[in-house]
């Protein structure tokens, strides 16, 4: 096919990149600027806002809470969704359409609706407004991100044939799981875990509506500061972006073969 006019093409791509990068860069700079409201570039640089943020009593509490919720969601995914996915692929293929459907539903339920539905049902102690309820909501909300990569890699390796050839070579079930299946789906599990971690870590809606002030997470603190002090909000945003970048880089690096997390989560839906 004829080459498109290269100028137009490059211009489009450049504008896109600028649009994607500019807000992030600006936030990074803003978080270390002394004063940046009438000049085009900051008047000076400082780490004061980070210091203030770190010193804030809620900083470490919310950060810890966010880590607790994210890690719990990842663990539930690993101990619950991965084995179920494997089980369905190998033992109950007839349950696969049901599983697929259950994994699509969260995309169709807005976070506010999920929060509302859970609060209505679990209005009694010890569930009401508890971190436990928040974690459950986060698991439901993020489970497609764990399911898709694992399910796709299970399909890609054709577990049946692999299992049967390993059996014919004399391997037992444990050996098959540890030495044949696991290495093949590990990249999928890894990218699923990181994606769940990143999404849950940044999740504001569920946390704000389910636990709110009783169990504040990092994004809640961030939103509070966007209304009180922009410079500290910037410092917190930078931390949030950095966590997301790190997770994304780890996913890209870990999955290697050019499979991208979102592509994967959306794939074959």
């Amino acid at each position: 096919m004829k080459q498109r006019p290269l100028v137009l093409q490059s211009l489009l791509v450049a504008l896109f990149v600028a649009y994607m990068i500019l807000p992030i860069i600006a936030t990074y700079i803003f978080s270390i600027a002394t004063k940046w409201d009438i000049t085009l570039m900051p008047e000076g640089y400082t780490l004061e806002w980070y210091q203030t943020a770190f010193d804030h009593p809620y900083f470490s509490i919310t950060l810890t809470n966010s880590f607790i919720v994210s890690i719990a969601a990842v663990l539930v995914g690993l101990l619950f969704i991965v084995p179920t996915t494997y089980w369905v692929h190998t033992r109950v293929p007839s349950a696969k359409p049901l599983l697929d459907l259950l994994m699509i539903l969260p995309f169709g339920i807005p976070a506010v609706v999920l929060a509302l539905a859970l609060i209505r049902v679990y209005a009694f102690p010890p569930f009401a407004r508890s971190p436990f309820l928040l974690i459950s909501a986060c698991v439901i909300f993020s489970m497609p991100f764990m399911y898709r990569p694992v399910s796709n890699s299970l399909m890609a390796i054709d577990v049946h044939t692999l299992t049967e050839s390993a059996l014919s070579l004399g391997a037992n079930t444990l050996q098959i799981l540890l030495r044949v299946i696991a290495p093949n789906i590990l990249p999928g599990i890894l990218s699923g875990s990181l994606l769940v971690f990143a999404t849950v870590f940044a999740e504001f809606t569920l946390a704000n509506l389910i636990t709110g002030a009783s169990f504040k997470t990092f994004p809640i603190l961030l939103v509070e500061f966007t209304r009180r002090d922009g410079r500290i909000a910037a410092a917190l945003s930078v931390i949030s972006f950095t966590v997301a970048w790190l997770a994304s880089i780890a996913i890209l690096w870990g999955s290697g073969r050019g499979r991208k997390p979102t592509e994967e989560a959306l794939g074959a839906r």
Partner: protein
Amino acid sequence: MMSFTRIPRKTWSNWLGVAPFLAFCLAFEIVPVLLLLSGSFSDKQGAFSLGNYAKISAPIYVRSFWNSIQISAITAILGAILGLLIGYAIFRLPSPRVREALIALSDVTTNFAGAPLAFAFIVILGSNGVVTLAFEKYFALKLYPAFSIYSYSGLVLAYLYFQLPLMILLIIPAFAGLRREWWESAHNLGANTFQYWRRIALPILTPSLIAGIVLLFANAFGAYATAWTLGGSNITLATIQIAFTITGEVLHDPGAGDALAVVSLLIMGVCIAIYQFANSRARRWAR
């Protein structure tokens, strides 16, 4: 799959392995949503009633739905058109490494929704933002008060930030599915570039395009954190109204909240159904 070569399975006990997960989904997804549904059709005493739906026909709720639909449609269509163009530009880049890098960038940024993103837009496009100042200085163009990041137009700009890369991620595989033979056959049979796009490439891309638009629509419709951080109560969207009934900031009417949630679910359900259908059409061609 040649299942007859395998040992017949005890299907029943195998289903037990799925049971814990099914129970979890029932407990935290299915049952709460069903109860929401039944709650929306009950009055305070639990009797059947359409009262909640009558309540949400109040102007504030109708307007919030209309706003949500509008902003979702605008950002979905804009995102789809721009995503199509930029996606094609990226797809046709000569260097595979640059192309991969841009896809990776889209992948990361489409997950950057929510509070930090909203704040980043305040940093660049707030009344003292860099871009606002740059426009004033270099183009002598005052963005404010005609434009405001806290307004409707600002919200569109912020939503596009996660809509655009999502569309790019969805459409690039569709471009990759356009086989070189189709262009060459068409050209060989006498078609020019325009005829090829009009008669072959665009019709083949249409299901993917529709799938992209509805997914973007659903993506925007369900969003809450970005709008909340940016506009607070300035902009009234369906999700913001639902959240209000939980936090009780404005009014506290659980029944209305249920009805709002059910209508939202309905809209989302239609989107997902169209998405699935369009996607299966796209896949049928991509053999």
